[in-house]
């Protein structure tokens, strides 16, 4: 029996921690430390004193999810609110999942091991479509009905976000809402609405309606999808008055006003990135046509030098990390990167703190930067991404790099003591022929040749790393037919033979690739519509978990699930993946507004087919992609203004 409260807050369940029950299972599973929390900087708040409680999930193992920058930022933004609590949760591996089911232990948060089903909101941040099934496991373990329609006022509101939720349609039966774009202001808006609604005792439906009315939070159930006889979408329309026809993405301006993360939790368990990460700018307008991240994060918004330095300083003091990562989609593109690199190297190179700058730009300046950041450190490897094997392919994808650029760049790298160069390419790009991919072998040999001359050594190396191209929503390639996995695999095989055939070079060139099958599933999920939800559920029921991990991924399971779930719809996996779309077709994400003008995307797709290029709007005139106009945003770049006396 609960005592009557004088508080206006509705009573919420408070089971407390499930740790004592979990604890007995931990000696039986691999790497138990990932489930115990105990991180420095983790926030612990009084559950009962809070008005709004968020659980944030990164739907992969802790070792991958804990370093995620997006979650780290939202975690702080939410916990800075006095009456808001936010805890994190991650996917549990199948060994623990089985034990949790056997012993009735629910999905839990890392901080206080609270049952996820008792939070008001569950936010799931997707970086890849291959994390979808892990969300289903978490919902199921939490005791939250898989289908949004089956949830009651007692269940959390489940909200998807992140790049892989820019087309949330395949998830629409599992999530209550989805947020497109930057999350900082979005989570605060949602919090404000939920806080108010809870105080008023509003129903779940009412809360969802209020969220949908904002025009920037997508609530799938307030939209109906009609199909044509041939399986294509006829129309997506709101089914309630005052729910808008289109839902817009969020764009955070003035990044200096959002200096997060300030003190991210420091994992005790080993993770994939052990460093203090600072996002030096958001967005990218280089216009690579395959790149969804670039297209959906326009325009470019830079942090100032002072803003970056402050985050680095505070972050190192709060975490004790020995490495700083200067993150963005292409970090060498920050307009003041040379000064940033120099000032940080001056300040930290003597204190055993290393600096890293993920950048794969193919130019000598990028090598200079890498040199600056490794003044005293080891020069092991540098990565460059020409992406396309032939000059023609690079024009198709709008990656304006010539072979001379590449040779000049690697020459500089090898001459400066770098011993290993890694080159990233894609296979299966639109209009690609065998010959385009075979050019990669020739280029790799040229790289080794140039490197041997530049370094005066024979033992330098070059690794060619190739990923299969997957067409993504909100890009000029959203209409493209994906290459069948047989085609991708055959081309990769040809390339491997070509690299191996020349004995003088074969040993110096490493070759890393993945087979094309996971790309087909990723393609199915990323350009899917609402009918794909049934495929995800079937695959999950058949055991799909951790699909991004090759040791857990099963292609056949997905194909079988798709066949069963799509039976009678008239559409199949090929229809979603290898089929080229026409201009007139209603795409499943047309009502989700990334700001990009569909006309502009189509013209860019046509330009790709003609191998025509588009310039970067940072240093050339605006190319009218539509984003700034539609979203009321503009480019924010340096120089950093210093205070005048």
């Amino acid at each position, binding site marked *: 029996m609960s005592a009557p409260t004088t508080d206006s807050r509705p009573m919420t369940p408070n089971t407390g921690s499930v*740790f*004592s029950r979990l*604890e*007995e299972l*931990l*000696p*039986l599973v691999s790497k*138990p*430390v990932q*489930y*115990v*929390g*105990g*991180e*420095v900087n983790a926030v612990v708040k009084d559950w009962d004193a809070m008005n709004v409680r968020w659980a944030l999930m990164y739907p992969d193992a802790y070792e991958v999810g804990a370093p995620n920058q997006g979650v780290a930022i939202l975690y702080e933004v939410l916990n800075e609110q006095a009456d808001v609590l936010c805890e994190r949760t991650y996917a549990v591996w199948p060994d623990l999942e089985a034990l949790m089911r056997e012993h009735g232990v629910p999905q839990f948060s890392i901080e206080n091991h609270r049952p996820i089903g008792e939070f008001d909101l569950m936010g799931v941040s997707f970086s890849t479509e291959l994390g979808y099934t892990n969300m289903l496991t978490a919902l199921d373990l939490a005791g939250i009905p898989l289908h949004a329609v089956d949830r009651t006022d007692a269940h959390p509101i489940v909200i998807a976000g992140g790049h892989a939720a820019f087309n949330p349609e395949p998830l629409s039966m599992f999530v209550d809402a989805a947020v497109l774009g930057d999350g900082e202001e979005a989570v605060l808006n949602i919090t404000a609405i939920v806080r108010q609604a809870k105080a008023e005792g509003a129903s779940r439906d009412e809360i969802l309606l209020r969220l949908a009315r904002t025009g920037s939070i997508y609530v799938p159930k307030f939209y109906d999808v009609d199909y044509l006889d041939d399986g294509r979408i006829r129309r997506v329309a709101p089914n309630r008055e005052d729910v808008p026809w289109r839902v817009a993405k969020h764009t955070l301006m003035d990044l200096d006003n959002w200096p997060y993360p300030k003190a991210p939790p*420091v994992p*005790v*368990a*080993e993770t994939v990135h*052990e460093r203090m990460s600072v996002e030096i700018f958001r967005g990218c307008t280089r216009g690579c046509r395959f790149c969804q991240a670039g297209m959906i994060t326009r325009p470019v918004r830079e942090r100032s030098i002072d803003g970056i330095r402050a985050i680095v300083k505070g972050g*190192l*003091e*709060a*975490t*004790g*990390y*020995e490495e700083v990562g200067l993150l963005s989609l292409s970090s060498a593109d920050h307009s003041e990167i040379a000064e940033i690199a120099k000032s940080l190297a001056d300040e930290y190179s*003597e204190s*055993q703190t290393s600096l890293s700058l993920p950048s794969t730009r193919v130019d000598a300046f990028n090598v200079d930067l890498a040199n600056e950041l490794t*003044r*005293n*450190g*080891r*020069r092991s490897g540098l990565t460059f991404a020409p992406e396309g094997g032939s000059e023609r392919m690079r024009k198709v994808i709008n990656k304006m790099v010539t072979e001379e650029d590449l040779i000049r760049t690697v020459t500089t790298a090898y001459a400066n*003591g770098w011993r290993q160069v890694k080159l990233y390419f894609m296979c299966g790009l639109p209009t690609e022929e065998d010959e385009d991919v075979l050019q990669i072998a020739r280029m790799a040999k040229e790289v080794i040749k140039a490197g041997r001359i530049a*370094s005066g*050594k024979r033992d330098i190396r070059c690794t060619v790393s190739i990923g299969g191209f997957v067409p993504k929503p909100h890009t000029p390639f959203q209409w493209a037919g994906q290459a069948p996995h047989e085609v991708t695999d055959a081309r990769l095989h040809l390339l491997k033979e070509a690299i191996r055939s020349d004995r003088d070079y074969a040993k110096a060139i490493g070759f890393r690739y993945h087979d094309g099958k996971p790309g087909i599933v990723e393609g199915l999920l990323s350009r899917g519509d609402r009918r794909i939800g049934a495929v995800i559920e079937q695959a999950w029921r058949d055991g799909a978990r951790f699909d991004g991990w090759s040791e857990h991924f099963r292609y056949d399971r997905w194909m079988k699930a798709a066949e069963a779930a799509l039976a009678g719809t008239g559409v199949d996996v090929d229809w979603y993946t290898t089929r080229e779309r026409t201009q007139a077709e209603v795409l499943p994400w047309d009502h989700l507004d990334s700001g990009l003008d569909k006309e502009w995307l189509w013209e860019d797709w046509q330009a790709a087919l003609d191998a025509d290029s588009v310039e970067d709007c940072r240093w050339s005139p605006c190319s009218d992609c539509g984003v700034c106009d539609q979203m009321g945003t503009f480019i924010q770049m340096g120089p950093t203004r210093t205070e005048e006396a």
Partner: protein
Amino acid sequence: MSRPQPDREVAVAVQKLRLCYAKRGRLRFASHRDFQRALERALRRANVPMAFSAGFNPHPKISYANAAPTGTASEAEYFEIGVVEKVDPDQLREVLDHAMPDGFHIVDVVEASTPDFVARLEASLWRIRLVDVDGEAVRAAVAAFLAEERVEVDRATKDGHRTLETRHVVVSLDAPDGAPDDRGRPCVILTAVVRNETPSVRPDDLLNALRLVGGLALVVPPEVTRLAQGPLDPQAGTVGDPFAPDRAR
């Protein structure tokens, strides 16, 4: 390498300190590597003036003594550090303890003034809490074990198996009843003094031995804590304080 080694000034350590730490509660699931990373970060957060090794990849000067296995708690783990400026041991204990994640605790610090510290860690006192077991059955297994001269167990290693003799390192082994746990299940507290030898006999080897000779069967994973490590008093069979010689000077 085409570049010379960096001619960084390598400051020499002016003082060495020995630290005793505890691994408690949920952080008992941390591995030794997890502890090492947490310690290095805490040393940075606490601004401890660490000495570093030379070379391209300088490491803080820390040496660890035999670490308790992952999953076991401990009140008595040891490591030594070198610093480039003198620090007060008590103050170091306080700031470093504060900087460590909750569950790792710096319990004692002394200035290292004697050699052969690791050799002093002759034996360990283990406390193994068995839940949901019958006290008489456990004591019978213990008696059977102590009556043997040799008890060999199999231990899975990275590359196969190896046999380990467990009896000769066990100095004493008791099994009094403990208080029932929070779910009312009966508990037995195994207390063992075990010599630290290489290869070391760990608590799970001991439980394995009790299963082999005495049929001890566990349903609930045991809770294991190393209570002490130090010189073995051969007469009393007790484990002493390894810092005593450093404190005496």
